[in-house]
């Protein structure tokens, strides 16, 4: 078995974030009932059956072969959805009642059309009952109410994809988990985190807004306040990056414990595969140079931190759905 990539930092006491109140992040939401009905009908239709019909009825798919002096009606084995009017409303109406295998001769759109009904396929959509819904085989869905909740959950997921409230709630939990838990951070790992923070600080400092004149500064501050509704203040990047990278190490320690429990701890082979997967973006670097650029320590930290981020994201999504979905 491949050796796992471990962290020496660990959590001594883990804060229970599930008691935190997320209500301030939960957005206003009302289900789109029209879309809901359409989604539910579509799902039933998707699981519906198709049977062979004996004579044409509205809604059937009739496979016909026809001849006419009008080119449009010279077709072999064309499928007509009877009553929709996609082919010819008049012809479709006149086909109703014609039996499978029977010849027909009719007038449609001013043309004489002769033909045969080769086959009749009739879609059978199940009725919207608890019993038919249970047969759809969707996990956790065994009634009409469950299906409504399931479809509205999809609407909620789509809404949350477009707005930032769920991300803000996850970030809040991430921060509280870091602040309220108790950690024993390994000195070497902490030193590495601080070094990474120092590099990031330099990057941020280099991007800092520099004003050539006092007028420029005043103008920028005015525009900033107008846009963001609060006065501009310079960020202490040193403090900011140090905290951020230390928090990342703390959460990675939690993630590592979780990974051990789940049996999903990272391996060196996985790290090398990761390097291999991104090498195309850095064509001028060798594998060894890539490993210097993306050191394994950084990979371990991000990989385990991601486990906790995902856990928090999943928790937030499930809490939001519980509060936002009227069918739950």
């Amino acid at each position: 078995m491949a050796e796992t990539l471990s962290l020496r930092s660990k959590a001594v006491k883990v804060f229970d974030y599930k008691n935190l109140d997320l209500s301030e992040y939960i957005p206003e939401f009302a289900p789109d009932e029209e879309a809901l009905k359409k989604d539910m009908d579509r799902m039933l239709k998707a699981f519906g059956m198709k049977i062979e019909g004996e004579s044409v009825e509205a809604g059937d798919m009739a496979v016909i072969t026809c001849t006419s002096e009008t080119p449009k009606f010279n077709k072999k084995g064309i499928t007509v959805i009877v009553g929709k009017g996609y082919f010819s409303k008049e012809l479709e109406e006149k086909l109703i009642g014609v039996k499978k295998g029977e010849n027909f001769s009719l007038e449609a759109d001013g043309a004489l059309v002769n033909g045969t009904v080769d086959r009749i396929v009739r879609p059978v959509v199940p009725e919207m009952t608890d019993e038919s819904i249970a047969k759809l085989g969707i996990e956790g869905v065994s009634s009409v109410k469950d299906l409504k909740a399931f479809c509205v959950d999809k609407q909620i997921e789509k809404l949350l994809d477009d707005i930032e409230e769920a991300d803000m709630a996850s970030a809040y939990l991430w921060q509280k988990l870091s602040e309220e838990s108790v950690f024993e951070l390994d000195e070497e790992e902490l030193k590495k985190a601080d070094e990474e923070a120092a590099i990031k600080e330099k990057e941020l400092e280099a991007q800092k807004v520099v004003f050539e004149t006092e007028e420029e500064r005043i103008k920028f501050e005015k525009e900033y306040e107008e846009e963001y509704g609060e006065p501009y203040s310079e960020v202490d990047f040193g403090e900011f990056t140090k905290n951020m990278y230390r928090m990342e190490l703390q959460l990675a320690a939690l993630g590592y414990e979780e990974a051990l429990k789940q049996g999903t701890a990272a391996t060196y082979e996985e790290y090398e595969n990761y390097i291999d997967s991104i090498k195309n973006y850095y064509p001028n670097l060798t594998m060894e140079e890539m490993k210097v650029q993306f050191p394994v320590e950084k990979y371990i930290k991000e990989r385990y931190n991601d486990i906790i981020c995902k856990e928090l994201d999943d928790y937030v999504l499930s809490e939001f759905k519980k509060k936002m979905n009227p069918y739950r």
Partner: protein
Amino acid sequence: MISVATNETYDELVNEGFSIVDFYSTTCVPCKMFSKILEDLTLDFPFVNIVKVNVSDHPALGLRHEIEAVPTVLFVKDGEEKEKVVGLMDEEEVIEKIQQYYYE
């Protein structure tokens, strides 16, 4: 029916009948929207072949059909390209094309 085409299977998939070929990439948001439209349409038009081509996985097919943006949709009848539409289409627009080319 929805099929996923590769360089090897593309011609065979569009050779017979009426096909809607959806050139997409996994990171493109409008492509995802269009994919859902096609899934819905396949319920009403099971006799139309829906053929999906991931241009990131099969750049040669993208080059061959001069795909410059995704989604790009080809309407193909018995192997012959009838029309190419670049950009997201809505359900009604696709149905109009089915009427135009399948029932032409």
